[in-house]
Protein backbone atom coordinates (compact mmCIF):
# COMPACT_ATOMS: atom_id res chain seq x y z
CA UNK A 1 0.00 0.00 0.00
CA UNK A 2 1.24 3.48 -0.78
CA UNK A 3 2.12 5.67 2.14
CA UNK A 4 -0.50 8.41 2.21
CA UNK A 5 0.18 12.06 2.76
CA UNK A 6 -2.81 13.55 4.55
CA UNK A 7 -3.38 17.23 5.18
CA UNK A 8 -5.93 18.24 7.79
CA UNK A 9 -7.14 21.82 8.05
CA UNK A 10 -8.18 23.27 11.39
CA UNK A 11 -9.39 26.64 12.60
CA UNK A 12 -8.78 28.33 15.90
CA UNK A 13 -12.23 29.23 17.22
CA UNK A 14 -13.56 30.44 20.56
CA UNK A 15 -14.95 27.61 22.64
CA UNK A 16 -18.71 27.97 22.47
CA UNK A 17 -19.88 25.34 24.90
CA UNK A 18 -20.71 27.95 27.52
CA UNK A 19 -22.74 31.15 27.42
CA UNK A 20 -21.52 33.19 24.49
CA UNK A 21 -19.86 36.57 24.92
CA UNK A 22 -19.41 38.67 21.79
CA UNK A 23 -16.50 40.98 21.17
CA UNK A 24 -17.17 44.67 21.63
CA UNK A 25 -16.98 45.35 17.90
CA UNK A 26 -19.64 42.71 17.26
CA UNK A 27 -17.47 40.90 14.75
CA UNK A 28 -17.11 37.63 16.59
CA UNK A 29 -17.00 35.70 19.84
CA UNK A 30 -14.89 36.82 22.79
CA UNK A 31 -12.94 33.74 23.76
CA UNK A 32 -11.13 35.06 26.80
CA UNK A 33 -13.39 33.31 29.30
CA UNK A 34 -14.00 29.98 27.64
CA UNK A 35 -10.78 29.80 25.66
CA UNK A 36 -10.01 28.73 22.13
CA UNK A 37 -10.16 25.38 20.50
CA UNK A 38 -10.82 23.70 17.18
CA UNK A 39 -14.29 22.35 16.46
CA UNK A 40 -15.15 18.79 17.37
CA UNK A 41 -15.56 18.04 13.66
CA UNK A 42 -11.97 19.11 13.15
CA UNK A 43 -10.77 17.15 16.15
CA UNK A 44 -12.31 14.11 14.55
CA UNK A 45 -10.74 15.08 11.21
CA UNK A 46 -7.34 15.23 12.90
CA UNK A 47 -7.93 11.84 14.45
CA UNK A 48 -8.92 10.39 11.08
CA UNK A 49 -5.90 12.00 9.43
CA UNK A 50 -3.58 10.44 11.99
CA UNK A 51 -5.29 7.03 11.74
CA UNK A 52 -5.32 6.99 7.93
CA UNK A 53 -1.71 8.10 7.78
CA UNK A 54 -0.66 5.47 10.29
CA UNK A 55 -2.62 2.73 8.51
CA UNK A 56 -0.73 3.40 5.29
CA UNK A 57 2.63 4.20 6.83
CA UNK A 58 2.23 7.77 5.69
CA UNK A 59 2.21 11.10 7.44
CA UNK A 60 -0.38 13.64 8.52
CA UNK A 61 0.23 17.36 8.29
CA UNK A 62 -1.89 20.09 9.75
CA UNK A 63 -2.70 23.50 8.33
CA UNK A 64 -4.34 26.52 9.81
CA UNK A 65 -5.08 30.01 8.71
CA UNK A 66 -5.16 32.53 11.51
CA UNK A 67 -3.27 34.97 13.68
CA UNK A 68 -0.16 34.15 15.69
CA UNK A 69 -2.16 32.48 18.45
CA UNK A 70 -3.49 29.89 16.01
CA UNK A 71 -0.19 28.07 16.42
CA UNK A 72 -1.74 26.67 19.58
CA UNK A 73 -4.17 24.65 17.47
CA UNK A 74 -1.35 23.46 15.22
CA UNK A 75 0.55 22.27 18.28
CA UNK A 76 -2.56 20.55 19.55
CA UNK A 77 -2.78 18.58 16.31
CA UNK A 78 0.96 17.89 16.34
CA UNK A 79 0.64 16.60 19.90
CA UNK A 80 -1.79 13.89 18.81
CA UNK A 81 0.16 12.59 15.84
CA UNK A 82 0.50 15.11 13.03
CA UNK A 83 4.13 15.53 12.08
CA UNK A 84 4.26 18.74 10.08
CA UNK A 85 2.44 22.04 10.27
CA UNK A 86 1.71 24.99 8.04
CA UNK A 87 0.54 28.32 9.35
CA UNK A 88 -0.96 30.78 6.91
CA UNK A 89 -0.63 33.93 8.96
CA UNK A 90 -3.70 36.10 8.50
CA UNK A 91 -6.57 37.65 10.34
CA UNK A 92 -9.17 34.98 9.73
CA UNK A 93 -11.91 37.51 10.50
CA UNK A 94 -11.06 39.31 7.29
CA UNK A 95 -11.40 36.22 5.10
CA UNK A 96 -14.53 34.73 3.65
CA UNK A 97 -14.96 31.01 2.97
CA UNK A 98 -13.94 31.43 -0.68
CA UNK A 99 -10.75 33.18 0.43
CA UNK A 100 -9.93 30.41 2.87
CA UNK A 101 -10.47 27.74 0.24
CA UNK A 102 -8.22 29.57 -2.19
CA UNK A 103 -5.49 29.95 0.42
CA UNK A 104 -5.57 26.28 1.35
CA UNK A 105 -5.44 25.37 -2.31
CA UNK A 106 -2.42 27.61 -2.76
CA UNK A 107 -0.62 25.75 0.02
CA UNK A 108 -1.56 22.35 -1.39
CA UNK A 109 -0.26 23.37 -4.80
CA UNK A 110 2.91 24.83 -3.33
CA UNK A 111 3.57 21.65 -1.37
CA UNK A 112 2.95 19.64 -4.47
CA UNK A 113 5.43 21.78 -6.35
CA UNK A 114 7.90 21.06 -3.54
CA UNK A 115 7.42 17.35 -4.12
CA UNK A 116 5.08 16.84 -1.19
CA UNK A 117 1.63 16.26 -2.70
CA UNK A 118 -1.23 15.79 -0.25
CA UNK A 119 -3.23 12.75 -1.36
CA UNK A 120 -6.06 13.54 0.96
CA UNK A 121 -7.18 16.85 2.39
CA UNK A 122 -9.48 16.66 5.40
CA UNK A 123 -11.52 19.48 6.86
CA UNK A 124 -14.21 19.79 9.46
CA UNK A 125 -17.74 19.90 8.13
CA UNK A 126 -18.08 23.55 9.19
CA UNK A 127 -16.21 26.03 11.33
CA UNK A 128 -17.62 26.18 14.84
CA UNK A 129 -17.84 29.95 14.74
CA UNK A 130 -18.81 31.19 11.28
CA UNK A 131 -20.70 28.03 10.24
CA UNK A 132 -20.24 28.58 6.51
CA UNK A 133 -20.59 24.92 5.45
CA UNK A 134 -18.67 25.38 2.19
CA UNK A 135 -14.87 25.69 2.52
CA UNK A 136 -14.20 22.02 1.76
CA UNK A 137 -16.36 22.07 -1.32
CA UNK A 138 -14.85 25.28 -2.64
CA UNK A 139 -11.40 23.83 -1.99
CA UNK A 140 -12.26 20.79 -4.09
CA UNK A 141 -13.15 23.03 -7.03
CA UNK A 142 -9.96 25.05 -6.52
CA UNK A 143 -7.96 21.83 -6.71
CA UNK A 144 -10.12 20.07 -9.26
CA UNK A 145 -10.63 17.14 -6.94
CA UNK A 146 -13.69 15.20 -5.86
CA UNK A 147 -15.13 16.04 -2.46
CA UNK A 148 -17.06 13.94 0.00
CA UNK A 149 -19.00 16.01 2.44
CA UNK A 150 -20.10 15.38 6.00
CA UNK A 151 -18.86 11.87 6.66
CA UNK A 152 -17.85 10.29 9.94
CA UNK A 153 -15.81 7.27 8.89
CA UNK A 154 -12.91 7.32 6.44
CA UNK A 155 -10.55 4.63 5.28
CA UNK A 156 -8.18 4.21 2.34
CA UNK A 157 -7.28 1.04 0.55
CA UNK A 158 -5.24 0.77 -2.65
CA UNK A 159 -5.56 4.45 -3.39
CA UNK A 160 -9.31 4.40 -3.06
CA UNK A 161 -11.00 6.29 -0.30
CA UNK A 162 -14.05 4.87 1.36
CA UNK A 163 -16.05 7.32 3.42
CA UNK A 164 -19.40 7.03 5.04
CA UNK A 165 -21.85 8.93 7.14
CA UNK A 166 -25.51 9.25 7.96
CA UNK A 167 -27.69 10.60 5.14
CA UNK A 168 -31.40 11.25 5.03
CA UNK A 169 -32.15 7.70 3.93
CA UNK A 170 -29.61 5.73 5.90
CA UNK A 171 -25.91 5.22 6.25
CA UNK A 172 -24.33 6.31 2.97
CA UNK A 173 -21.02 5.16 1.59
CA UNK A 174 -18.83 6.89 -0.96
CA UNK A 175 -15.88 5.39 -2.77
CA UNK A 176 -13.58 7.92 -4.39
CA UNK A 177 -10.15 7.69 -5.98
CA UNK A 178 -7.40 9.83 -4.52
CA UNK A 179 -6.48 12.63 -4.45
CA UNK A 180 -9.65 13.89 -2.82
CA UNK A 181 -11.12 16.31 -0.31
CA UNK A 182 -13.26 15.13 2.59
CA UNK A 183 -15.17 17.09 5.20
CA UNK A 184 -15.70 15.30 8.46
CA UNK A 185 -18.59 15.30 10.90
CA UNK A 186 -17.94 14.39 14.51
CA UNK A 187 -19.15 11.11 15.90
CA UNK A 188 -17.32 8.44 13.93
CA UNK A 189 -14.07 8.43 15.86
CA UNK A 190 -13.05 9.40 19.37
CA UNK A 191 -10.36 12.06 19.15
CA UNK A 192 -7.43 11.15 21.33
CA UNK A 193 -5.96 13.38 24.01
CA UNK A 194 -2.33 14.40 23.79
CA UNK A 195 0.28 12.49 25.73
CA UNK A 196 3.16 14.14 27.53
CA UNK A 197 5.78 12.86 25.05
CA UNK A 198 3.42 13.83 22.22
CA UNK A 199 3.09 17.33 23.52
CA UNK A 200 6.86 17.64 23.96
CA UNK A 201 7.44 16.38 20.45
CA UNK A 202 4.85 18.82 19.12
CA UNK A 203 6.72 21.69 20.69
CA UNK A 204 9.81 20.90 18.64
CA UNK A 205 8.20 20.58 15.21
CA UNK A 206 9.05 23.60 13.10
CA UNK A 207 5.98 25.35 11.76
CA UNK A 208 6.03 26.44 8.14
CA UNK A 209 4.83 30.03 8.02
CA UNK A 210 3.28 31.49 4.91
CA UNK A 211 1.61 34.72 3.99
CA UNK A 212 -1.61 35.09 2.06
CA UNK A 213 -1.39 34.04 -1.56
CA UNK A 214 -4.14 36.36 -2.74
CA UNK A 215 -6.13 39.41 -1.80
CA UNK A 216 -9.12 38.41 0.31
CA UNK A 217 -12.59 39.28 -0.87
CA UNK A 218 -13.75 39.27 2.73
CA UNK A 219 -16.59 37.73 4.68
CA UNK A 220 -19.29 40.35 3.89
CA UNK A 221 -20.04 40.35 7.61
CA UNK A 222 -21.96 43.35 8.93
CA UNK A 223 -22.17 42.41 12.59
CA UNK A 224 -22.91 39.66 15.04
CA UNK A 225 -25.55 39.72 17.73
CA UNK A 226 -27.06 37.39 20.28
CA UNK A 227 -30.54 36.05 19.54
CA UNK A 228 -33.35 37.41 21.67
CA UNK A 229 -34.62 35.18 24.43
CA UNK A 230 -37.55 33.05 23.36
CA UNK A 231 -40.87 33.77 25.07
CA UNK A 232 -41.48 31.37 27.90
CA UNK A 233 -44.61 29.70 29.25
CA UNK A 234 -42.77 27.36 31.58
CA UNK A 235 -44.57 26.15 34.65
CA UNK A 236 -42.17 26.23 37.60
CA UNK A 237 -42.90 23.32 39.90
CA UNK A 238 -40.81 24.67 42.74
CA UNK A 239 -37.36 25.37 44.02
CA UNK A 240 -34.83 22.89 45.32
CA UNK A 241 -35.50 19.43 46.75
CA UNK A 242 -38.89 20.53 48.11
CA UNK A 243 -40.19 20.36 44.55
CA UNK A 244 -39.71 16.58 44.42
CA UNK A 245 -43.36 15.62 45.20
CA UNK A 246 -44.63 18.00 42.52
CA UNK A 247 -42.17 16.46 40.07
CA UNK A 248 -43.31 12.95 40.83
CA UNK A 249 -46.94 14.08 40.54
CA UNK A 250 -46.11 15.26 37.04
CA UNK A 251 -44.40 11.96 36.22
CA UNK A 252 -47.52 10.11 37.34
CA UNK A 253 -49.76 12.44 35.39
CA UNK A 254 -47.71 11.88 32.23
CA UNK A 255 -47.87 8.17 32.85
CA UNK A 256 -44.13 7.64 32.75
CA UNK A 257 -43.75 6.37 36.29
CA UNK A 258 -45.47 3.02 35.95
CA UNK A 259 -43.21 0.04 36.06
Amino acid sequence: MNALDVLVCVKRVPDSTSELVLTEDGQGVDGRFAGFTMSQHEQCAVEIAVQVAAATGGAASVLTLGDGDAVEQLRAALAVGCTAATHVVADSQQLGPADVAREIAAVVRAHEADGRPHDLVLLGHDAADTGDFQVGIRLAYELGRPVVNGVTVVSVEDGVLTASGDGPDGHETYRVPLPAVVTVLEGGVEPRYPTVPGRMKAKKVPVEERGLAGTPAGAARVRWSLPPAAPSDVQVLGKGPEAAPAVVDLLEQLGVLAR
Partner: protein
Amino acid sequence: MILVLVEKDLAGDAVEVSLETLTFARSLSEAGGGVPIDAVVVGDVPPALRSELASYGVRGVHALTGPAFDAFAGAAWASGIETVLATTRSVVVTAAGTPRGGEVLAHVAARAGVPMAANVLSFGGLSPFVVTRQVVGGQALEEMQLAGRPAVFTVAGHAVEAAPAAAAGPAEVHEHSPEVAEADLVARVVSTDEPEPDLSGGLTSARVVVGAGRGAGSADGFADLLELADLLDAPLGVSRVVTSLGWRPHHEQVGQTGSRISPDLYIPCGISGAIQHWAGCSSAKAILAINTDADAPMVTRATHAVIGDLHEVVPAINAEIRRRRTG
Protein backbone atom coordinates in the same frame (compact mmCIF):
# COMPACT_ATOMS: atom_id res chain seq x y z
CA MET B 1 -36.93 34.00 -10.58
CA ILE B 2 -36.33 32.44 -7.18
CA LEU B 3 -35.24 28.85 -7.47
CA VAL B 4 -35.84 26.57 -4.48
CA LEU B 5 -34.30 23.12 -4.15
CA VAL B 6 -37.00 20.95 -2.64
CA GLU B 7 -36.04 17.69 -0.95
CA LYS B 8 -38.32 14.68 -0.86
CA ASP B 9 -38.69 12.08 1.84
CA LEU B 10 -38.86 8.35 1.09
CA ALA B 11 -42.59 8.61 0.47
CA GLY B 12 -42.03 11.25 -2.16
CA ASP B 13 -43.45 14.16 -0.15
CA ALA B 14 -41.64 17.44 0.30
CA VAL B 15 -39.84 17.55 3.62
CA GLU B 16 -41.11 20.09 6.14
CA VAL B 17 -37.99 22.27 5.99
CA SER B 18 -38.33 22.56 2.21
CA LEU B 19 -41.86 23.83 2.69
CA GLU B 20 -40.49 26.31 5.21
CA THR B 21 -37.96 27.37 2.62
CA LEU B 22 -40.70 27.88 0.05
CA THR B 23 -42.58 30.01 2.56
CA PHE B 24 -39.43 32.02 3.14
CA ALA B 25 -38.94 32.36 -0.62
CA ARG B 26 -42.48 33.65 -0.97
CA SER B 27 -41.89 36.46 1.48
CA LEU B 28 -38.74 37.32 -0.45
CA SER B 29 -40.73 37.22 -3.68
CA GLU B 30 -43.34 39.55 -2.26
CA ALA B 31 -40.68 41.97 -1.08
CA GLY B 32 -39.27 41.90 -4.59
CA GLY B 33 -42.60 42.77 -6.18
CA GLY B 34 -43.77 39.27 -7.01
CA VAL B 35 -40.72 37.54 -8.37
CA PRO B 36 -41.90 34.09 -9.54
CA ILE B 37 -40.83 31.02 -7.56
CA ASP B 38 -39.75 27.79 -9.20
CA ALA B 39 -38.75 24.57 -7.49
CA VAL B 40 -36.11 22.02 -8.35
CA VAL B 41 -36.81 18.42 -7.43
CA VAL B 42 -34.47 15.53 -8.02
CA GLY B 43 -36.35 12.58 -9.46
CA ASP B 44 -40.03 12.16 -10.18
CA VAL B 45 -42.64 14.70 -9.25
CA PRO B 46 -45.71 12.78 -8.11
CA PRO B 47 -49.01 14.64 -8.56
CA ALA B 48 -49.40 15.12 -4.81
CA LEU B 49 -46.04 16.82 -4.64
CA ARG B 50 -46.82 18.95 -7.63
CA SER B 51 -50.06 20.23 -6.12
CA GLU B 52 -48.44 20.75 -2.73
CA LEU B 53 -45.70 22.82 -4.32
CA ALA B 54 -48.33 24.72 -6.26
CA SER B 55 -50.15 25.48 -3.05
CA TYR B 56 -46.93 27.04 -1.76
CA GLY B 57 -46.87 29.41 -4.71
CA VAL B 58 -44.53 27.49 -6.99
CA ARG B 59 -45.21 28.13 -10.67
CA GLY B 60 -42.70 25.82 -12.30
CA VAL B 61 -41.33 22.54 -10.96
CA HIS B 62 -38.07 21.42 -12.52
CA ALA B 63 -37.56 17.70 -12.22
CA LEU B 64 -34.01 16.40 -12.65
CA THR B 65 -34.13 12.90 -13.95
CA GLY B 66 -31.84 10.42 -15.56
CA PRO B 67 -29.17 7.98 -14.38
CA ALA B 68 -26.92 10.81 -13.15
CA PHE B 69 -29.46 11.47 -10.41
CA ASP B 70 -30.10 7.89 -9.27
CA ALA B 71 -27.70 8.17 -6.38
CA PHE B 72 -26.76 11.30 -4.53
CA ALA B 73 -23.76 13.27 -5.74
CA GLY B 74 -23.50 16.87 -4.62
CA ALA B 75 -21.70 18.01 -7.76
CA ALA B 76 -24.21 16.23 -10.02
CA TRP B 77 -27.16 17.85 -8.30
CA ALA B 78 -25.42 21.21 -8.62
CA SER B 79 -24.82 20.51 -12.28
CA GLY B 80 -28.52 19.86 -12.70
CA ILE B 81 -29.41 23.09 -10.97
CA GLU B 82 -27.01 24.90 -13.29
CA THR B 83 -29.04 23.57 -16.22
CA VAL B 84 -32.24 24.91 -14.69
CA LEU B 85 -30.57 28.22 -13.90
CA ALA B 86 -29.54 28.58 -17.50
CA THR B 87 -33.16 28.36 -18.57
CA THR B 88 -34.75 30.41 -15.79
CA ARG B 89 -32.34 33.28 -15.21
CA SER B 90 -32.84 33.01 -11.47
CA VAL B 91 -31.58 35.77 -9.18
CA VAL B 92 -31.88 33.60 -6.09
CA VAL B 93 -31.10 29.95 -5.45
CA THR B 94 -32.07 28.61 -2.08
CA ALA B 95 -32.58 25.38 -0.22
CA ALA B 96 -33.28 24.19 3.28
CA GLY B 97 -30.30 24.19 5.62
CA THR B 98 -30.17 20.40 5.66
CA PRO B 99 -26.97 18.43 5.04
CA ARG B 100 -28.11 17.86 1.42
CA GLY B 101 -29.32 21.41 0.90
CA GLY B 102 -26.18 22.93 2.28
CA GLU B 103 -23.90 20.64 0.33
CA VAL B 104 -25.61 21.10 -3.01
CA LEU B 105 -25.83 24.86 -2.71
CA ALA B 106 -22.18 25.05 -1.71
CA HIS B 107 -21.42 23.28 -4.98
CA VAL B 108 -23.69 25.67 -6.86
CA ALA B 109 -22.02 28.71 -5.32
CA ALA B 110 -18.53 27.38 -5.87
CA ARG B 111 -19.25 26.61 -9.50
CA ALA B 112 -20.85 30.01 -10.06
CA GLY B 113 -18.10 31.81 -8.19
CA VAL B 114 -20.58 33.55 -5.91
CA PRO B 115 -20.86 33.64 -2.13
CA MET B 116 -23.21 31.45 -0.17
CA ALA B 117 -24.93 32.19 3.12
CA ALA B 118 -25.74 29.20 5.29
CA ASN B 119 -28.69 28.94 7.66
CA VAL B 120 -30.45 32.20 6.93
CA LEU B 121 -33.24 33.20 9.29
CA SER B 122 -34.47 36.41 7.70
CA PHE B 123 -33.58 39.07 5.21
CA GLY B 124 -33.29 42.81 5.58
CA GLY B 125 -32.92 45.02 2.55
CA LEU B 126 -32.92 43.64 -0.98
CA SER B 127 -30.46 46.09 -2.41
CA PRO B 128 -27.99 45.43 -1.04
CA PHE B 129 -29.32 42.03 -0.13
CA VAL B 130 -28.78 41.66 3.60
CA VAL B 131 -29.55 38.43 5.42
CA THR B 132 -29.40 37.36 9.04
CA ARG B 133 -28.12 33.86 9.57
CA GLN B 134 -27.22 31.51 12.38
CA VAL B 135 -23.61 31.21 13.43
CA VAL B 136 -21.92 29.36 16.30
CA GLY B 137 -24.44 26.55 16.08
CA GLY B 138 -27.30 29.01 16.39
CA GLN B 139 -25.98 30.68 19.52
CA ALA B 140 -25.35 33.91 17.65
CA LEU B 141 -26.65 35.72 14.59
CA GLU B 142 -24.71 37.23 11.77
CA GLU B 143 -25.95 40.03 9.61
CA MET B 144 -24.31 39.58 6.24
CA GLN B 145 -24.37 41.24 2.84
CA LEU B 146 -24.98 38.68 0.15
CA ALA B 147 -23.57 40.15 -3.02
CA GLY B 148 -23.35 38.21 -6.29
CA ARG B 149 -26.07 36.86 -8.53
CA PRO B 150 -27.59 34.48 -8.17
CA ALA B 151 -27.80 34.98 -4.43
CA VAL B 152 -27.21 31.54 -2.95
CA PHE B 153 -28.30 30.70 0.56
CA THR B 154 -29.84 28.00 2.71
CA VAL B 155 -32.70 28.64 5.10
CA ALA B 156 -32.32 27.48 8.68
CA GLY B 157 -34.81 24.99 10.02
CA HIS B 158 -37.71 26.65 11.87
CA ALA B 159 -36.73 30.08 10.53
CA VAL B 160 -40.33 30.43 9.43
CA GLU B 161 -43.39 28.28 9.82
CA ALA B 162 -44.43 26.51 6.65
CA ALA B 163 -47.65 28.03 5.30
CA PRO B 164 -49.34 27.62 1.90
CA ALA B 165 -49.89 30.70 -0.19
CA ALA B 166 -53.16 32.57 0.19
CA ALA B 167 -53.83 32.52 -3.53
CA ALA B 168 -52.08 29.78 -5.42
CA GLY B 169 -52.21 28.86 -9.06
CA PRO B 170 -51.27 25.64 -10.80
CA ALA B 171 -47.67 24.51 -11.18
CA GLU B 172 -46.16 23.25 -14.37
CA VAL B 173 -43.58 20.43 -14.36
CA HIS B 174 -40.52 20.76 -16.57
CA GLU B 175 -38.40 17.66 -16.85
CA HIS B 176 -34.65 17.99 -17.33
CA SER B 177 -32.26 15.15 -18.06
CA PRO B 178 -29.02 17.03 -18.49
CA GLU B 179 -25.69 15.54 -19.32
CA VAL B 180 -23.59 15.41 -16.18
CA ALA B 181 -19.83 15.51 -16.49
CA GLU B 182 -18.01 12.40 -15.32
CA ALA B 183 -16.03 14.50 -12.82
CA ASP B 184 -19.27 15.49 -11.12
CA LEU B 185 -20.16 11.86 -10.55
CA VAL B 186 -16.92 10.72 -8.98
CA ALA B 187 -18.06 11.44 -5.43
CA ARG B 188 -21.43 9.79 -5.28
CA VAL B 189 -23.16 7.51 -2.86
CA VAL B 190 -22.39 3.94 -3.81
CA SER B 191 -24.50 2.27 -1.19
CA THR B 192 -27.05 3.20 1.41
CA ASP B 193 -27.47 0.91 4.38
CA GLU B 194 -30.19 0.76 6.95
CA PRO B 195 -29.33 3.12 9.78
CA GLU B 196 -26.76 1.51 12.05
CA PRO B 197 -28.00 -0.28 15.11
CA ASP B 198 -28.83 2.26 17.76
CA LEU B 199 -25.75 2.73 19.90
CA SER B 200 -27.41 5.41 21.94
CA GLY B 201 -29.20 3.08 24.31
CA GLY B 202 -32.50 3.73 22.67
CA LEU B 203 -32.33 7.50 22.97
CA THR B 204 -34.19 8.17 19.74
CA SER B 205 -37.08 5.85 20.56
CA ALA B 206 -37.29 6.29 24.32
CA ARG B 207 -40.50 7.56 25.97
CA VAL B 208 -38.52 9.29 28.69
CA VAL B 209 -35.00 10.63 28.49
CA VAL B 210 -32.98 11.95 31.41
CA GLY B 211 -30.58 14.66 30.24
CA ALA B 212 -27.38 15.83 31.89
CA GLY B 213 -25.25 18.84 31.20
CA ARG B 214 -22.42 20.80 32.65
CA GLY B 215 -24.30 21.05 35.94
CA ALA B 216 -23.22 17.48 36.64
CA GLY B 217 -19.94 19.11 37.58
CA SER B 218 -17.55 16.29 36.77
CA ALA B 219 -17.28 12.77 35.45
CA ASP B 220 -18.20 11.65 38.96
CA GLY B 221 -21.35 13.73 39.07
CA PHE B 222 -23.74 11.38 37.25
CA ALA B 223 -24.65 8.85 39.95
CA ASP B 224 -27.96 10.45 40.94
CA LEU B 225 -28.89 11.05 37.30
CA LEU B 226 -28.21 7.45 36.38
CA GLU B 227 -30.33 6.36 39.30
CA LEU B 228 -33.20 8.54 38.09
CA ALA B 229 -32.78 7.15 34.61
CA ASP B 230 -32.90 3.66 36.05
CA LEU B 231 -36.02 4.42 38.09
CA LEU B 232 -37.77 5.75 34.99
CA ASP B 233 -36.36 3.05 32.71
CA ALA B 234 -35.00 5.88 30.60
CA PRO B 235 -31.71 6.29 28.77
CA LEU B 236 -29.31 9.06 29.70
CA GLY B 237 -28.74 11.79 27.13
CA VAL B 238 -26.06 14.41 27.56
CA SER B 239 -25.16 17.78 26.15
CA ARG B 240 -22.24 18.35 23.89
CA VAL B 241 -20.05 19.87 26.58
CA VAL B 242 -20.34 16.69 28.61
CA THR B 243 -18.92 14.60 25.79
CA SER B 244 -16.37 17.20 24.82
CA LEU B 245 -15.06 17.20 28.39
CA GLY B 246 -14.89 13.44 28.22
CA TRP B 247 -17.32 12.92 31.10
CA ARG B 248 -19.60 10.63 29.07
CA PRO B 249 -19.26 8.81 25.72
CA HIS B 250 -20.25 10.50 22.48
CA HIS B 251 -23.12 8.12 21.71
CA GLU B 252 -25.05 9.59 24.62
CA GLN B 253 -25.00 13.05 23.08
CA VAL B 254 -28.29 14.71 22.26
CA GLY B 255 -28.20 17.63 19.83
CA GLN B 256 -27.41 18.83 16.38
CA THR B 257 -24.33 16.63 16.29
CA GLY B 258 -25.77 13.83 18.38
CA SER B 259 -29.06 11.98 18.60
CA ARG B 260 -32.35 13.72 17.93
CA ILE B 261 -34.89 12.57 20.45
CA SER B 262 -38.68 12.86 20.59
CA PRO B 263 -39.76 11.39 23.91
CA ASP B 264 -42.99 12.07 25.77
CA LEU B 265 -40.89 13.61 28.51
CA TYR B 266 -37.37 14.93 28.47
CA ILE B 267 -35.77 15.82 31.81
CA PRO B 268 -32.70 17.98 31.12
CA CYS B 269 -30.73 18.46 34.34
CA GLY B 270 -28.08 21.13 34.55
CA ILE B 271 -28.29 21.84 30.81
CA SER B 272 -28.38 25.50 29.92
CA GLY B 273 -29.87 24.77 26.50
CA ALA B 274 -27.70 25.99 23.67
CA ILE B 275 -29.33 25.84 20.22
CA GLN B 276 -27.06 22.95 19.39
CA HIS B 277 -28.71 20.93 22.16
CA TRP B 278 -32.20 22.28 21.49
CA ALA B 279 -31.94 21.02 17.92
CA GLY B 280 -31.78 17.50 19.30
CA CYS B 281 -34.57 17.70 21.85
CA SER B 282 -37.10 20.20 20.55
CA SER B 283 -39.43 17.39 19.46
CA ALA B 284 -40.00 16.25 23.03
CA LYS B 285 -43.67 16.54 23.94
CA ALA B 286 -42.93 17.76 27.45
CA ILE B 287 -39.73 19.06 28.96
CA LEU B 288 -39.00 19.21 32.67
CA ALA B 289 -35.87 21.31 33.17
CA ILE B 290 -33.91 21.16 36.40
CA ASN B 291 -31.50 24.07 36.60
CA THR B 292 -30.11 26.56 39.08
CA ASP B 293 -30.68 29.41 36.66
CA ALA B 294 -34.31 30.31 36.11
CA ASP B 295 -33.30 32.33 33.06
CA ALA B 296 -31.41 29.54 31.29
CA PRO B 297 -32.79 28.95 27.77
CA MET B 298 -33.55 25.34 28.62
CA VAL B 299 -35.78 26.50 31.48
CA THR B 300 -37.58 29.21 29.56
CA ARG B 301 -38.30 26.81 26.68
CA ALA B 302 -39.35 23.94 28.92
CA THR B 303 -42.94 23.11 29.76
CA HIS B 304 -42.05 22.52 33.40
CA ALA B 305 -39.09 23.44 35.54
CA VAL B 306 -37.57 23.05 38.96
CA ILE B 307 -35.15 25.77 39.96
CA GLY B 308 -32.34 24.24 41.95
CA ASP B 309 -29.11 22.33 41.92
CA LEU B 310 -29.51 18.95 40.27
CA HIS B 311 -27.33 17.43 42.99
CA GLU B 312 -30.00 18.41 45.52
CA VAL B 313 -33.13 18.06 43.43
CA VAL B 314 -32.49 14.75 41.70
CA PRO B 315 -31.78 12.74 44.88
CA ALA B 316 -35.00 14.14 46.34
CA ILE B 317 -36.96 13.05 43.26
CA ASN B 318 -35.35 9.61 43.42
CA ALA B 319 -36.29 9.30 47.06
CA GLU B 320 -39.85 10.41 46.35
CA ILE B 321 -40.24 7.86 43.54
CA ARG B 322 -38.94 5.08 45.75
CA ARG B 323 -41.21 6.17 48.57
CA ARG B 324 -44.30 6.07 46.38
CA ARG B 325 -43.37 2.74 44.91
CA THR B 326 -42.79 1.06 48.23
CA GLY B 327 -45.49 3.06 50.04
